[in-house]
């Protein structure tokens, strides 16, 4: 919990009716690392991710990104700050093609204005062409370019996860939060995903990772936070936390 953390949550609490999804959770994600968030079902991992990205407003506590308080920032402003996310259940924009999904993502598109969409055609078309080049490179990288003009609704579960990640990359973020990137992905694509995340980390992108697949976590994460009952339980490297008695008990449901 040093001053230089990329993303830090401090004492965050969130209740849904009588259920305390988060109950005074504090943890940090360091720059340049892949940080894992693990824990049994109901530990509050996904809620924490939603709080971190502005989709859910915390009842108390604060979220700091690069030292700046982003607790009350709207979800749609996070990409501008340098943070992107993917979703647990892939929510592809099914009626858009794979390529359109990617072209949608880039920030500051002139052509998204009502008047500009008609009268500044030349300007946005130039932006589109630039974005299309980037999109093509990314699609080739994740191996989806041959499907570029297919409706994204028809992709397999794993392909949708790759598309989701590629779309997040077009936002050119410093930090990407992945919600269960390995869930429902076929083993070969899972290896592909691990390879891709490693490559991106080497290029300087930081990751936060909510995941149940321990192989995935062990392969990728530099640092792991274990959550239980809305709080951070243990932190450390994957080997450290997987040997921790409290972690085993949390997963098995024994009172710690």
């Amino acid at each position, binding site marked *: 919990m040093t001053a230089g953390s990329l993303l830090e949550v401090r004492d965050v609490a969130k209740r849904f009716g009588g259920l305390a999804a988060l109950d005074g959770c504090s943890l940090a994600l360091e720059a340049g690392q892949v940080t894992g968030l693990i824990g049994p079902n109901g530990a509050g991992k996904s809620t924490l991710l939603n709080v971190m990205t502005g989709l859910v407003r915390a009842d108390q506590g604060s979220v700091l990104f690069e030292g700046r308080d982003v607790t009350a920032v709207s979800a749609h402003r996070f990409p501008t700050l340098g943070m992107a996310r993917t979703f647990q259940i892939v929510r*592809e*924009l099914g009626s858009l093609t794979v*390529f359109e999904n990617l*072209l*949608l993502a880039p920030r500051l598109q002139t*052509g998204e204005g009502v008047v500009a*969409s008609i009268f500044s055609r030349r300007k946005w078309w130039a932006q589109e062409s630039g974005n299309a080049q980037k999109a093509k490179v990314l699609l*080739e990288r994740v191996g989806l370019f041959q499907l570029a003009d297919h409706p994204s609704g028809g992709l397999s579960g794993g392909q949708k996860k790759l598309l989701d990640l590629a779309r997040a990359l077009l936002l050119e973020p410093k930090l990407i939060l992945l919600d269960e990137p390995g869930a429902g992905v076929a083993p070969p694509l899972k290896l592909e995903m691990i390879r891709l995340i490693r490559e991106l980390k080497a290029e300087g992108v930081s990751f936060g990772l909510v995941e149940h697949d321990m192989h995935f976590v062990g392969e990728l994460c530099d640092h792991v936070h274990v959550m239980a009952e809305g709080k951070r339980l243990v932190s450390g490297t994957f080997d450290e936390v997987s040997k921790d008695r409290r972690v085993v008990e949390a997963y098995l449901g024994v009172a710690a």
Partner: protein
Amino acid sequence: MIAYLITIAILVCIAALVGLALNLQWGQAGLVNFGVVGFVAIGAYATALLAPQIGWFPAMLVAGALSAILSAGLALLSIRLEENYLAIVTIGFGEVVRLVILNEGWLTNGALGIPDIPRPFAALGQTIGGDTVFIVFALALVAIVFVLLEAMARSPFGRVLRAIRDDATVTSALGKNVFALRVRAFAVGGAVMGIAGALQAFYLTYIDPGQFTPIVTAYAFMAVIAGGRGSNVGLLIGACSIMALLEGTRFLKDFVTVIDGVQLSAVRLGMIGAGIVLLLILRPQGLAPEPKRRAADMLPQENRSV
């Protein structure tokens, strides 16, 4: 017979404008608007009241602007609502407009309506023939609106609206201001509905509250569903076929003698309903598909062979 066909064509033009507007709001952006007729009525009344004072063109612009402002206002109030609740609010809005028009006699002349609305190019109409001039005007108006809305649909603006329709949360996480974009889509649609109302006022030269019943909204939805949600080309086909069916079946009474005219008009509406149901079962995507940008359109020539 020619005069009758021209009348039908002008009615198709009005329906097409309303349909194009709904296709933007509901077809592309996924925002249900059951108060379509209210916005058309506002456009028509604004035109009727202002055209004698300030001329037909400024009146039409004011009609569009007024309807757009009211659309944006309604959207600002209610667009955070989920689909079903937005539907209820817009139904309510349509009813409020109808009741205000009916009861605020000092402004709208109540149930008596407003007569003597001047037509555009009236002087030209007297030399060539009023309806001939008017059909050209109506077609030109539809063409302009179609070109503008189609350009919008194929731009990043149209794409982000379709993304919001598919999943607003994801679109928001991608950094798009979903709320502002929805309000804009609603306002642009409202402007076009206002202009459609203006066209109706110009053509009939007399408007009363009886012209603005919820069936106008229903026809617009039928046209969008038949044409295919999100496709403007489909919408034009849809609007034409709905009108052709409605009007064409009028002549059935000459051939069918077992039931009387009143019964037949009910049967005609029923046939349209059955047609829509069949279309949804057999061709749920509608008559024409949504426009898609192909990757090859965007990439330079040398990359096309990849």
